[in-house]
């Protein structure tokens, strides 16, 4: 894995090359299939990009100490989010749940007790993600957790391009001149959390912290962001990371 420190180094322009290189080197059968599934070209207009919204509930925020508890995915396009294709898994984290995290995502000991290890659902999960652009809200959870969890089980991690609806919101509300001016005035920054972001686009509030509900909420948010701030013709490379 020399030279790859993805959290810092992977950049937009590299994605197709990176995926091809990983496909070459992958030892694990499933990962090889995953990386060799063709990705949309960076120039593809968003309206033609197959996407999949992904959300995970975890026992904490640090992928080295905490584990994944549940995963929700909904494949979708800019036009439609078909609920019939949704998938949802509860998995058993390597370390036991603590009470605080139970209160947070409502998944209990007993549910987790009967759940399989992530390794048991990984093939199904990667099959859904393969060939689609993954859409998350705040990539710094999903990306490192999935990478670390896969690396622990298969000896090599997974990295792939993502569209991060939170960073799209940040571009609008945190990085503009206006946002910097507001900060200079000492005003609190605009919230770019999932529900607050959705509210700005007239999207209804959902009961949060369920991986599949949040995945659906993220997919809807992306549709709203593209409709309002970008265009269906915007190339994929303008929003992925």
């Amino acid at each position, binding site marked *: 894995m020399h030279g790859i420190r993805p959290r810092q180094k992977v950049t937009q322009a590299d994605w197709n090359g990176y995926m091809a290189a990983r496909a070459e080197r992958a030892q694990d059968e499933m990962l090889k299939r995953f990386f060799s599934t063709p990705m949309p070209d960076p120039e593809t207009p968003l309206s033609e990009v197959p996407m999949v919204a992904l959300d995970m509930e975890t026992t904490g925020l640090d992928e080295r100490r905490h584990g994944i508890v549940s995963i929700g995915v909904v494949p979708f396009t800019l036009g439609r989010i078909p609920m*019939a294709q949704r998938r949802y898994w509860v998995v058993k984290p390597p370390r036991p749940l603590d009470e605080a995290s139970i209160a947070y995502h409502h998944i209990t000991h007993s549910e987790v007790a009967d759940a399989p290890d992530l390794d048991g659902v990984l093939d199904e999960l990667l099959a859904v993600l393969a060939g689609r652009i993954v859409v998350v809200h705040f990539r710094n959870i999903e990306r490192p957790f999935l990478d670390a969890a896969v690396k622990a089980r298969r000896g090599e991690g997974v990295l792939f391009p993502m569209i991060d609806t939170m960073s799209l919101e940040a571009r609008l509300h945190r990085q503009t001149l206006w946002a910097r001016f507001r900060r200079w005035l000492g005003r609190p920054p605009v919230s770019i959390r999932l529900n607050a972001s959705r509210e700005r686009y007239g999207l209804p509030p959902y009961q949060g912290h369920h991986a599949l509900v949040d995945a659906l909420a993220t997919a809807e948010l992306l549709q709203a962001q593209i409709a309002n701030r970008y265009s269906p013709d915007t190339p994929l490379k303008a929003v992925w990371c």
Partner: protein
Amino acid sequence: MDVELLEIRQHMGQFPPFDGLSDELLDAIAEQVEVSYFKTDSDILTLNDTLNELCYIRSGAVEVYRRQGELYNRLGEGDIFGHFSLLRNHKVRFPAKAIEDTLIYFIPDAVFQRLCEEDDDFADFVELERPRLETAAEQQKKSNDMMVTRIRKLVTRYPVMVESTTSVQQAAKQIIDAQASAVLVINEGSNNPRYSFQDSEGKTWQMCGILTDSDFRTRVVAEGLSPSTPIGEVISERLITIQSDASVYEAMLTMLRSNVHHLPVLYRQRPVGVVHLSDIIRYETHSGLYLVSNIFNQSSAQGLAKLAPDVRAAFVRMVQEGANSQMVGSALSTIGRSFTRRLLELAEDTLGPPPVPYCYMVNGSMARNEQSIVTDQDNALILSDDFVPEEHDEYFHALAAFVSDGLAACGYTYCKGDVMATNRQWRQPLAVWKRYFQDWMANPTPEKLLHSSIFFDLDSIYGEDLFVETLQDLIAQTAPKSPLFLAAMARNALNRTPPLGFFRTFVMEKDGKHNNSINLKRRGTAPMVDLIRVHALACGSKAQNSFQRLDDISKTQLLATGVSDKLSYALEFLCMSRIRHQMIDLQEERVPDNNIEPENVEDSERHTLKDAFQVLSNAQKFLKFRYPVPTQRQGR
């Protein structure tokens, strides 16, 4: 049930028609939903696109248009659209556009079809207009109230009729053979239009009396008359009858007041049966409506005025007991008529007998038997042609004023348009009334008819019924042949239009504007009644009640098949909605009015009202097309 679908199914489960679905069906929908976001001003459905999904508004607002771009409906959270297309050719008939940022749940056709098949209420809901109105109207339908049941329902067979030259013995035999308890006595030929009728061979007969079981005892046997005495010699001069469309209650009161136990029932002037007090008692229910008999027991106008709260109480109870609009309208009209009659009796007691015969005519809702609790008085006097103003008008003016003031005291406010017998213009001999009607029909302008259309609902409630019948006949003969008159009436019937429907807590107008409340009479029942009147005039119907008029209209080719049923359901629902809201007003101790506030309208009522408005709106469009202004005046 997957927890993750709760968001979707819980939302849908709050809104009709999904609120009545089984959990299993709700899950089936949530499973298959496809979600899509539409920003403000973006198109959701485009005309003639293929549509294979039902659209459900999860959040936001949508406007639906007609082909020509006219606003059809504005919808909000929980509303559905696209079902018309799914039920037909899957082509978008009504394009839809997001007017706010909107989230749509698309429900695939297969799921939609399954819902229609497995849930009747859902199927009723999405099927256009008729069934929903029909269901709503039928749910309200319960009959058997004595106040609204017409006496003709109690007539089970033709009356036994004998000529006046028949011997009493022969007559008695006929009664026994027919197992009847009375016989009607008739004479050939007639010099008086009263009680005269033609038989199937075109012979004219006149009914001159009735002889009952007890009359045989008192008038024949007790008097020691021979069995060969002609029956004409023993009958009394006094003949008490009732019209076949009078209510059972009225029949009973007539019997009580006149102390008779048999009533010949007439259709116009022809006897169609005889009812006996026992028929009525058998029919009587525990309606507890002593109100009407109470009215006739009052000896002064002040006493009558004290009964006003009882009228409101009777109204509330009737609605609570599930009466439909026809029952309520008819009962309130019966009460109003009784007040008027009693006041006329009291006036005659005070002023003495009338110098010439007269007929007290009512117009508008009372004539139609469609009175509501919020009503004013519309009445007029038709006087005998022997009327001499200088000698007689003082009497009739005093009579009219007595009744009018008395009615006002009982809660029937004075007519704002001054359509009252106190107005000299509306207190005229029959000949003048005929000229009025002839002029309205021969030289109509919409302006002239604006204030006189109320006279085209007319009924007699006291005195010489024949005067009003003469006018009814005149109208029925002339109106169908007067295209210009019909065109003018049709134009006036379009002056008041329904709103589009409701949106959130507002009433939606066709131009997209919002209002906080709606006058359901002005925007619903009244234009509907106007419209029905035009068709009724065109087909020469003599019925006054809108529902009966629709029955007559449906026997003609004036309207396409099924349209009169649709109108009838829509009118029933509009009337019932108005009645329900007036009851709510009374229960909450507010002054009842004709306004309804959208926040008080339940979801299901909203949708049905919207359908009813739509039926009215379509019928108005047809009216314009059906009665165009003729290019040439007829008969000139």
